[in-house]
């Protein structure tokens, strides 16, 4: 059963297709050979993927793996296959708070049609004002905050539903 990973919001399927002579992983249908050299005392390790070396630092925290690959950083979501299958296709409909904050302005209104990129809310967290834009086109189904209200990390701020066909 493949593992589901998410990078930059896009899911990918990874599975083991061979262990000998080299570990071979299939990523979105494409096969890659993988050789992992032991980590040095600093924690850096070299990964040979199709024979090409990459310097990797990584650490796991719950359902995320933080990676530094050569000079760039990535945060990869990881779900075991079973968990991934249990969750439906509701991604992108719910807008949740990444961190606690307060609502500066509410531009969205209930049942309004929005296009992807339309500004929905302006919130303030860590002294910064942030405009929350619609991740996709839809209809504002519910609105859980009001102007000057505060919210906690993870709170549902607003939800969208798909436009009627």
């Amino acid at each position, binding site marked *: 059963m493949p*593992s589901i*990973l998410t*990078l930059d919001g896009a899911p*990918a399927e*990874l599975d*083991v*297709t*061979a*262990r*000998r002579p080299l*570990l*071979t*992983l299939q*990523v*979105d249908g*494409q*096969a*890659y050979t*993988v050789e*992992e050299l032991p980590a040095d005392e*600093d*924690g*850096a390790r070299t*990964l040979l*993927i*199709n024979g*090409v070396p*990459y310097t*990797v*630092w*990584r*650490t*796991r*925290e719950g359902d995320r*793996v*933080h*990676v*530094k*690959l050569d*000079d*760039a*950083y*990535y*945060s*990869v979501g*990881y779900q*075991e296959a079973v968990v991934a299958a249990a969750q439906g296709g509701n991604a992108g409909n719910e807008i949740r708070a*990444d*961190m*606690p*904050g307060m609502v500066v302005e509410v531009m969205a209104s209930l049942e309004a049609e929005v296009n992807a990129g339309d500004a929905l809310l302006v919130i303030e*967290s*860590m*002294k*910064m004002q*942030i*405009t929350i834009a619609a991740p996709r086109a839809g209809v504002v189904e519910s609105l859980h905050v009001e102007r000057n209200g505060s919210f906690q*990390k993870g709170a549902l701020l607003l939800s969208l539903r798909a436009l009627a066909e």
Partner: protein
Amino acid sequence: MLKNVLIANRGEIACRIIRTLRRLGIQSTAVYHFADRGAPHVAAADYAVELTAEVPTAAYLDVAQLLAAARSAGADAIHPGYGFLAENAGFAAAVEDAGLVFIGPQPEVIRLMGDKIISREFAVAQGVPVAPSCKQEGSLEDFVAGATAIGFPLLIKAAAGGGGKGMSIVRSADELPARAATASSEALRYFADGRVYAERYVERPRHIEVQVFGDGQGHVVHLFERECSVQRRFQKIIEESPAPNLPAALRDRICTAAVQLAAAANYRNAGTVEFILAPDGAFYFLEMNTRLQVEHPVTECVTGLDLVELQLRLAGGEPFSLAQSDITQTGHAFECRLCAEQPEHDFRPATGRVMRLREPAGEGLRFDGGLREGLAITAAFDSMLAKLIAHGGDRQESAARMRDALQELVLLGVDHNADYLGRIFAHRAFLAGQLHTGFVVEHAAALAAPTLDPTQRAAVLIAAVLGTDEFQRLAYDCPEPHASIGHWRN
């Protein structure tokens, strides 16, 4: 000489001040909120006093508790760092009234420079150039009429504030009334003072500031300029000294104006005079920051002076004998502000935990941080994590050292801007010193994270998946029959 200094701050600046205190043999007292109990500045200090408050930031703003902490630890002076109470005249006065030394300027000078309107009038009176401006004296309607008369584009900001709060650029008369109303309400919310003011907005301006130091009796010197034009959301992310492509004669005029202003105020201790430099060489006074700046290390690198040491010696009663001719500028230094944020999402602040940290080290490098592995990065405080400073013989060498240092840095567990800073240091316009405060907006496309090709993307995913125990088991510990099946399938 001072015996024990309480640092009314936290994070990297508290750690940095403690380093100099230790070197000078002065005891240090840290203060902390419960949320910071495991923070490095608490461990680094000789004494630490817990402050209580429901909201963590409120602890560091509680004057009565800070004074009580100073008394209980036996401190004879308070260093405010930057932010929090550093530019609060009431705090400086309360410290002095309590019989302690405030390591900073006189309270009345903090008050003078803390008000944008009054400080500009003071600058005008000293012959220091300011941009054409208009201040709100009566109604918002009168203000709009006056601002329109200056002409567009205009910069509108809170009269009482700083740090980019309530600041906006208005390009035409029809958008002015609404924007002025918004700025006023933001000013009221942030600074409890709804007055706003507008000034001529200089296109492609550079932010040049001058480090000054005074003895409080009229003797003021400058420690040269810093260029702080690379900003996002009106906040600096890269600073350097000297400013690139700045003719010596113009540099001297700017530094002289800064000294003139500070001397007229009988300025005491370290301060910074900020200017906007127009492409035609005109420069205008912006504001004076009456404290140590975040970016002071670049000045320390090129002058070889420890600004905190100068602050402590003066506060301890030693005469300030440094003459202007004693101060020289050697080589070139850059500072990067490492922030917990997502540059690809409009620099939205990020939270997390420092899971892995490798601090860069080497010739000409300095890492001013208050980080350790396991430290939680929360929304309770500012998003700046640490500062990376590189000094080299010239701008090119300094930039190369910074690039190497950014690559050597490893910081996992919270999103941050190290990649982004690395891309700026590889950008042609940046390396050519073609800077202005809109730099990151102008070059947004070139500075965006490169799109991964399928092979790179697969490499990231493989590197990540092998970091999970579950997949490691699947990949290496599988019983032989299954492994063989895998092999045949191939």
